[in-house]
């Protein structure tokens, strides 16, 4: 019996102790009419050897192309130590650290994580993580509305990932919150400061870099939002923060809440998950922040220790008045990220960011030298860029895929106004030869 240790002798003794004639009898409180029959859609059990064979075959079908897709999930080198330590049983198979004395490993690690994320984003405090970047943005929108105590509108640029905007819509639509879309400048690809009166709003979302890979004018946007009575939610790529000004330093007063997806910091692409959402904010908003938070304190002998704190905001105590229904963080992925950031350090993360930026710049130059390819936006970029092709994107991507290249993310469905637009990304994992190969193959595909 897979994963069940009982011998027949054990079962006999245990039933005798209970005073039940059979295991079946233990279910005698369940109405007989509800008893289900055999499971018909669940195959027979496989041994580890058999499932191992099957999964190897399936994994071999997947995911081995030269990848130039970004669009919210980024391929970076992950040091071997990261997942080897993360999957140690003591991290992997531990529960949420409610029994603090028996969970000091996880708790101290989260405290260290909070410290790193707060510093990277230039904020005062961090939570222990949320589900992913999209849901973290949704929680930030709810948090900003809670904190504002009045306005139910949030300004959402179209340069925020269309999928993130879809997640936010799904999560806030039943709470009467209006998401006001802000258009982008067609030349620069950045969001201009609104010139019309936007009315009362709880927050402005500023993506940096934005979905097109373009850098927004964050200082001006931040000051405008604050001058008009709204808070600023920064949506950032954490790798970029090794190079770019931290949201805490945007404009005169800095952003108020910072969120994003932590995937670039040590999580593999992995079909889209598990990743995690990070959230940091200013001290004044800490009690509005959803999710778990770890604090440092002392034990009864005065020794340093760590514990979950501010739990009274959470659903298991506050029930219908909780800040959110959220229970879990993405603890294991946060464990990986904390080890990743520790191994890279400030210099390593900066080199990853700078090399990704330089590779994308080089790729963009090579691609735009091909007839039929133009750069869509004039704005400065981080490690992604939009190119426009002289023909539909889908067949071009198919031709590249036939050569083992994933050429980028097709924008034509979400941004039809951009025509045949393709979002490309070259991280530090790409060599000069990889970039050349992509340019050659694209050139071939467009010459047919």
């Amino acid at each position, binding site marked *: 019996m897979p994963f069940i240790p009982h011998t027949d002798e054990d079962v006999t003794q245990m039933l005798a102790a209970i005073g039940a004639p059979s295991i079946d009898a233990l279910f005698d409180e369940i109405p007989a009419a509800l008893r289900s029959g055999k499971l018909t859609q669940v195959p027979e059990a496989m041994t580890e050897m058999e499932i191992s064979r099957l999964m190897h075959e399936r994994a071999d079908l997947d995911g081995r192309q030269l990848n130039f897709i970004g669009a919210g999930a980024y391929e970076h080198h992950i*040091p071997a130590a990261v997942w080897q330590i993360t999957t140690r*049983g003591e991290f992997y*198979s531990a529960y949420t650290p409610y029994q*603090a004395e028996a969970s000091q490993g996880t708790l101290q*690690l989260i405290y260290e994580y909070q410290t790193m994320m707060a510093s990277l984003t230039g904020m005062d405090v961090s939570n222990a993580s949320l589900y992913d970047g999209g849901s973290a943005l949704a929680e930030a929108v709810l948090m900003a509305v809670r904190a504002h105590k009045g306005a139910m509108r949030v300004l959402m640029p179209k340069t925020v990932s269309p999928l993130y905007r879809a997640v936010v819509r799904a999560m806030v639509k039943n709470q009467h919150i209006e998401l006001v879309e802000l258009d982008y400048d067609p030349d620069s690809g950045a969001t201009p400061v609104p010139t019309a009166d936007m009315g009362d709003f709880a927050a402005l979302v500023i993506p940096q870099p934005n979905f097109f890979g373009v850098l927004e004018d964050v200082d001006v946007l931040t000051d405008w939002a604050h001058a008009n009575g709204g808070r600023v939610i920064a949506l950032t790529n954490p790798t970029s923060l090794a190079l770019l000004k931290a949201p805490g330093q945007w404009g005169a007063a800095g952003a108020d809440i910072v969120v994003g997806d932590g995937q670039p910091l040590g999580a593999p692409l992995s079909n889209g998950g598990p990743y995690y959402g990070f959230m940091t904010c200013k001290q004044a908003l800490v009690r509005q922040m959803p999710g778990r938070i*770890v604090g440092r304190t002392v034990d009864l002998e005065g020794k340093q*220790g760590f514990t979950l704190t501010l739990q009274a905001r959470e659903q298991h105590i506050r029930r219908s008045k909780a800040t959110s229904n959220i229970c879990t963080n993405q603890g294991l992925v946060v464990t990986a990220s904390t080890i990743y950031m520790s191994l890279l350090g400030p210099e390593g993360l900066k080199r990853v960011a700078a090399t990704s930026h330089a590779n994308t710049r080089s790729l963009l130059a090579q691609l735009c030298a091909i007839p039929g390819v133009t750069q869509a936006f004039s704005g400065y970029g981080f490690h992604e860029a939009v190119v426009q092709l002289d023909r539909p994107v889908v067949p071009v991507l198919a031709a590249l895929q036939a050569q083992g290249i994933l050429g980028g993310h097709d924008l034509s469905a979400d941004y039809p106004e951009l025509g045949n637009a393709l979002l490309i990304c070259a991280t530090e994992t790409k060599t000069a030869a990889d970039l050349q190969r992509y340019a050659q193959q694209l050139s071939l595909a467009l010459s047919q």
Partner: protein
Amino acid sequence: MLIFEHSRPNRAAHAQMPAHAADISDLPAHLLRQDVPLLPQASEMDVVRHYTRLSQKNFSIDTQFYPLGSCTMKYNPRACNSLAMLPGFLARHPFAPATTGQGYLASMYELQEMLKDVTGMAGVSLAPMAGAQGEFAGVAMIRAYHDSRGDAARREIIVPNAAHGTNPATAVMCGYTVREIPTDKEGDVDLEALKAAVGPHTAGLMLTNPSTLGVFEKQIQDIQKIVHDAGGLLYYDGANLNAILGRVKPGDMGFDVIHMNLHKTFSTPHGGGGPGAGPVGVATRLLPFMPVPVVTKENNQYRLLVEGDIPATIGRMSANHGNAGVLLRAYIYARMLGAEGMHRVSEFATLNANYLLKELQQAGFDIAFPTRRASHEFIITLKKLKDETGVSAMDFAKRLLDYGYHAPTTYFPMLVPECLLIEPTETESKETLDAFVIAMKTILTEAYATPELVKGAPYTQPVRRLDDVKAARELDLVWRQG
């Protein structure tokens, strides 16, 4: 010692970064960072040693018995981890074409089919990333259903007072008001109170069965009829699905929508607090509203159904396909169990719980619902002990740590004073349960003989009991140099 205290200026793990600093002079200075973020500056070995040592300060299933009620801390098979982390699965970008992900998508399609079968539902979406997101998706579908029929008066969700705190929190996030109804002395829903509560304002009832009190809700057929007759829908909180896996299908009990916690029933790792996975199953009438994406099979090829394919969908819970790697682990576990193995999960989880209940009862512990069968978990109450010795359920739990056992769930459900909610799971042996009973008996004796000893526990952990009040009053959430 914190990782930052191992840090030295200009020390680094050089093998882990690009060899050269690339040129970034094309970026304008006003957008660039001037300060250095507070990340550790440490050698690779410093980092490996630090986090390995931290791991050793944790209790875990791999090292200890973890009878944490309502959390289903069963063994996490190692194969599930190593096979889900095969390079082909890890390297695939979520936006890569479906043709490059047939191995992953086939596994997900089959997982959907298996979950439909064990829950008796018509459709399954794997998208929600945790139980609470599954709940959110479920209640949002209930709302979308009523709204689609123009039945806008249904604005109230009924929740038994024994429910998990997420149930009312979720209902509020979906724009509903919450009405709590009481539980009777046997631990079942108070039917008269339910009858009085339902009406044209009722959107639905959220129910956990077996309940958080560790008993099967015997009147489920009556409850189902009362709620449906009033026009409401029934939501199944799958927190305790392990108790009935392969034995009773929530669909057969009349539930319209269900979420499952794969990190409980399907043994994906808890990971120190996530990631989990909270797929939802729906009855036929809720199929049009399922959260996207959903995996489909067309002409022997698999692909994700998105917004355009399910136009009335409640939308997206995440940018991608939820916690994909967690779903893969659940799939591998399900295939290793097989149909027979799934039946055995609930059988042996129930056997272990009822055996442990009986042994603890014999050892002198008060069982909260002594006339009932345990499901896969049960509650003991230490109220008498607290009254007689001052030793609380929390003290008792902390003392268990000294004996090498993770504490059961304390103070939940809140209805039972000084309670311990105990769930042994099917993967523990009789010897482990017997040894746990001896530890429980020993602590009970200690509590009467030397209550101060128990109140001061734990003594053997990296720290003694922590000052929660100081933690909350003098918030110290990030380390600062100096």
